[in-house]
């Protein structure tokens, strides 16, 4: 070392090393205060204990997804102006350059179409509901309509994926998976997230298991699909020749072996697996009871409609959804296909409505009469809206409507949601939202809020960043919360 500098600094090599050792010593001392220093990094989100952040308004959700996008203009968003201007061209000032799908982009005219079906106000709340939905009309004072939903996607798959996972591309956890992750299971004998599918009589669109995926979350949060056959959950029954007793003995032995494995390797997946086997064993008792509707009284069948006796029908799924929810399943997701009325709307929509109307209303009433409606949110709606202009030829009695992402209507009922309330508004053409828009992210933030979760806090770290159901957006729509 330069001697002048040495002199200036008042140290030489020996001093320097001497001081360095003191420094090292105190560094070691200091490190004692940092408990996790050498343990590698821990993600605080793992600490989630399955408890809501604040007192929830609701504990469970039943999402009646109307797949294919039911027309808001023939259901809940009453627009007499369209009837007045029936057949006239959609003004450019209303369309404002909104993109078109490949199905109508070649169309030369965009004639406005008024609803073929009559509207009437119902209940004390005076909600407008079309004649296609007479049973929902009877419970109008239980429903909260959001008429200002809007989304970013214009085609089914991305829109559906967006609505279910908060992203258009897929591979993100579904709403149900997020809730299972955030709140855990209420009933340890059943999965926290169950999925039920049905097909209507209208033009349908597919649903895929990516919609109920756990994404990057642990696989226990994946939606479990209940099928309509004799075995609602596949591979749950004991193999032929195995009785419950020997199954129990087998599981006990298996669990002993797995415990040895766990002691040797310390892999937490092993304990998870033991628990899953135990849950499946208990599900063997819990599930058949759910699938059995023979104990339901006659008037329950009349309430949901006789179709509920046919496994796999929408009505049967609504009834099953009530039973699952009643048994503590956090999130029951229904998909009802057949709402994609590009053409023959007046032919198909009454059939679709007939299948969905009675059972959806029955589910709300059924939860209510069991004292469960105030802790269960029921959501009804599709992935986007339908255009106010006609797709294809505008006939005397028939027409079609294309996809419309700028405005659509959904309703919610139950836990913590205002009753007999309408939020948001579209213009008189039913085309643009003019008041209180609700984006899909806002919708998700609101749902999580109802369940006692802060959408900004429910995160999971994946590929180096934290993800949320609402990603980087979303605000809670407070006015719809009671």
């Amino acid at each position: 070392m330069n001697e002048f500098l040495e002199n200036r600094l008042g140290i030489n090599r020996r001093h320097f090393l001497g001081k360095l050792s003191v420094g090292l010593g105190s560094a070691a001392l200091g490190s004692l205060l940092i408990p996790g220093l050498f343990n590698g990094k821990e993600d605080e989100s793992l600490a989630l204990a399955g408890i809501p952040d604040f007192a929830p308004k609701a504990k469970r959700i039943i999402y009646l997804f109307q797949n294919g996008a039911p027309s808001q203009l023939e259901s809940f968003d009453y627009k007499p102006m369209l009837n007045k201007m029936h057949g006239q061209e959609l003004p450019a000032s209303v369309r404002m350059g909104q993109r078109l799908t490949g199905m109508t982009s070649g169309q030369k005219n965009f004639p406005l179409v008024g609803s073929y079906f009559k509207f009437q106000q119902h209940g004390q709340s005076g909600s407008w509901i079309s004649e296609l939905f007479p049973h929902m009309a009877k419970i109008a004072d239980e429903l909260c309509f959001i008429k200002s939903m809007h989304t970013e996607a214009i085609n089914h798959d991305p829109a559906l994926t967006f609505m279910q996972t908060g992203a258009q591309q897929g591979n993100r956890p579904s709403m149900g998976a997020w809730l299972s992750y955030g709140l855990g299971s209420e009933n340890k004998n059943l999965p926290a997230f169950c999925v039920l599918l049905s097909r209507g009589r209208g033009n349908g669109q597919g649903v895929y298991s990516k919609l109920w995926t756990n994404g990057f979350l642990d696989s226990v949060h994946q939606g479990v699909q209940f099928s309509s056959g004799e075995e609602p959950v596949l591979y749950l029954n004991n193999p032929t020749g195995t009785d419950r007793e020997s199954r129990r003995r087998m599981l006990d032995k298996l669990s002993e072996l797995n415990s040895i494995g766990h002691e040797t390797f310390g892999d937490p997946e092993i304990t998870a697996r033991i628990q899953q086997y135990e849950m499946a064993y208990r599900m063997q008792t819990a599930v058949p009871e759910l699938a059995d509707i023979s104990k339901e009284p006659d008037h329950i069948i009349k309430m949901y409609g006789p179709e509920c006796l046919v496994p796999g029908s929408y009505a049967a799924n609504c009834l099953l959804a009530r039973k699952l929810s009643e048994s503590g399943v956090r999130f029951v997701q229904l998909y009802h296909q057949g709402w994609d009325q590009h053409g023959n709307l007046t032919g198909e929509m009454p059939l679709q409505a007939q299948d969905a109307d009675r059972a959806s209303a029955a589910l709300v009433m059924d939860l209510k009469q069991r004292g469960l409606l105030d802790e269960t949110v029921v959501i009804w709606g599709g992935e986007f809206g339908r255009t106010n202009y006609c797709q294809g030829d505008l006939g005397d009695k028939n027409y079609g409507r294309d996809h419309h992402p700028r405005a659509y209507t959904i309703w919610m009922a139950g836990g913590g949601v205002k009753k007999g309330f309408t939020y948001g508004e579209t213009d008189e053409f039913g085309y643009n939202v003019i008041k209180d828009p609700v984006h899909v992210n806002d919708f998700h933030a609101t749902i999580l809020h109802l369940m006692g979760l802060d959408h900004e806090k429910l995160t999971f770290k994946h590929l180096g960043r934290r993800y949320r159901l609402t990603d980087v957006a979303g605000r809670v729509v407070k006015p719809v919360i009671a």
Partner: protein
Amino acid sequence: MELFKKTISYSVVALQVLIVILLVFENQLSIPLWLQSVGRVHPLMLHLPIGLLLITTLIAFGQRWFTESYKELFSFLLYLSAFTASVSALMGMVLSLEGGYNEGDLLFHKWFGIALSFMCWFLISVSLSPKIQRPALLAATLVLVVTGHFGANLTHGEDFIFGPLAQEVKSERVLTDSSTVFTAAIEPILEAKCYSCHNEQKAKGKLILTSQAAIAKGGKNGVLWKGDESLLMDRLNLPIDHKKHMPPKDKAQLTDDELDFIQTWILRGGNFETKVNSLPATDTLRLLASKIIDQYHNQPHVKSIYSFASAPADKIEELNTPYRTVFRIAANEPALQVDFFLREAFDSKFIDELKSVKDQVVAINLSKMPISDADLNKFKSFTNLEKLILNQTDVEGKTLAVLNALPNLKMLSLSGTKVKAGELSAFEKNRSLREVYLWNTGVGKQEETTLQQRMAHIRWDTGYHPDEKEKMRLSPPILRNDGQVLKRGERVSYKHNLPGAVIRYVVNGEMPDSVSGDIYKDEINIDRYAIVKSKAFKDGWLSSNVSEHIFFPEGVKPDRATLLTKPEDRYMGEGASTLIDNRKGMPDFYRDPVWMGFRNQNLEALFYFDKNIPEISNVTLSYARNIYAMCMPPSEIQVWGGDDEKNLKLLASYKPEQPKQYVPTRIEGADIAIPPSKFKCYKLVAKTLTKLPEFRKAPKEKGWLMVDEVFFN
């Protein structure tokens, strides 16, 4: 003296390193209790470097007065200053980890403190000429003063020194039942958007808005409102570019909600005393105010609802079993909910075990559990219970009166139990209950009305009552078999999920009605291709639509098959074996390789029995009928038989009936009876339809023949 210097300088290095460590790992530290006490000595310790450093600096500037012993004394003091500064800084760091200090001040105090300790270390470890040393010392003193100032702010508050001079000390906003509209909603807006210019110190336009008296007084332009005239509203409503618009253009503006609200409040007289809760819930002012209150008061921190003590976490954990879930309703609430599952596993001691958390439980759900009237006694001590769900339990209602002992019970659900109206009189004097659910009990619609009249403070809900006059169409019978192909010995099995429904059926015949057809009792034996029509009946219901199912008995599988004609390119299936693989497709999805499609050529195929030659009496071709997609029945079918492909004779031919109108898409069969025979080789010819029927309105198109299987019986 050297030893002293050496010890000090080593210690200072050690302390500096510790400070750096604390700084870097601040967020991951956990401070043991004994160290917290050390940290708390900081407020005591810090006075030492203050005094020492000040003296040192003074001495440095007054060097002339200490000629003899100056150097020694100076070093002594400087080293001591450095040491005490480092110790103070370290202690301060520890103390700061406990939290609870004003973040902003703490940040400044911390960094200035650390800077000071580093400067002191620098002063003792580098020998400087007095020309540099003195300003350096002065700088250190300056830093010391700043550090001390922020430190004092932390402990004594910002306004400590000048506090007594300030007129009003503002209290934190707390919302209570008696909050006025002014304090709950007007003040927060003023504070956020007006106080910065209109306070006692600044008072622009001589207007002060920080107190009610000052607001009432107004500014140099006069009072803010009088009757319908309002200077305040005028200024707020001026265009934003106007010179007199308030708040000024570059400041935070009022929202529309805020403007609406202030205007309404002023038009109502601008009363400072109106209480929020004294206004009716639907009052405009109240509605407007609640928006503002939401905005300013309901910030992320959600207040907890329950104030009782929480139960220990391990005790809660202990109570959780697969059959009983006990969980906190939220992270910030002590309240617990308890759910029970699986009737078979239930034991009434599961309720007794909840004794340890009886003060925390607010909701219990016992749906479907085998509990009876006697068990209700067990809930008496759950004084905070608000919600009790007893749906579908064995409770009959004889002991409902014991629930009156629960002062907080608001909701009781007895749906699906045997409770009768008489027993509900037990709640006549109950003042806490708000809702009772009685669907599917002995309580009918009329009794509900009586209960509602007698006990109006409770909402009685007997749920859905079907319209007795409405006759609904029963759902059709459900087929239990898996598919259309019946395995050897497999019988056709139907069921109906409505208890008491009767199924009538007809095999290969016309639709059954309520007197015709066979009543379904046992499984049906089908040994030939058959169409089974069935219908369900029950009193009080309309009979179901007809349910129609087509069955293909599996028969005997030929050993091999070959094709004599070529299917269309897109529908090749998997070659000739497709016809005898026992796999059937969906009626409308032909890309599936279980299907084979013919259009320009007829289907001609050979089937061989090489080993055991069975007796065959009929052959069935399975094809898709889908008129929309032009998939039609074959126009003619022939079956040939012989010892090999060269010696075949025609055994039978048959022209299936063509549809005369649109009919539903389905898979059906063309079934041909042949004289019972034992041939090694059979040939099947199925001719495509060359001209579609008139109603299909496609005169130039040929029909498709979509086939998936051939059965030999």
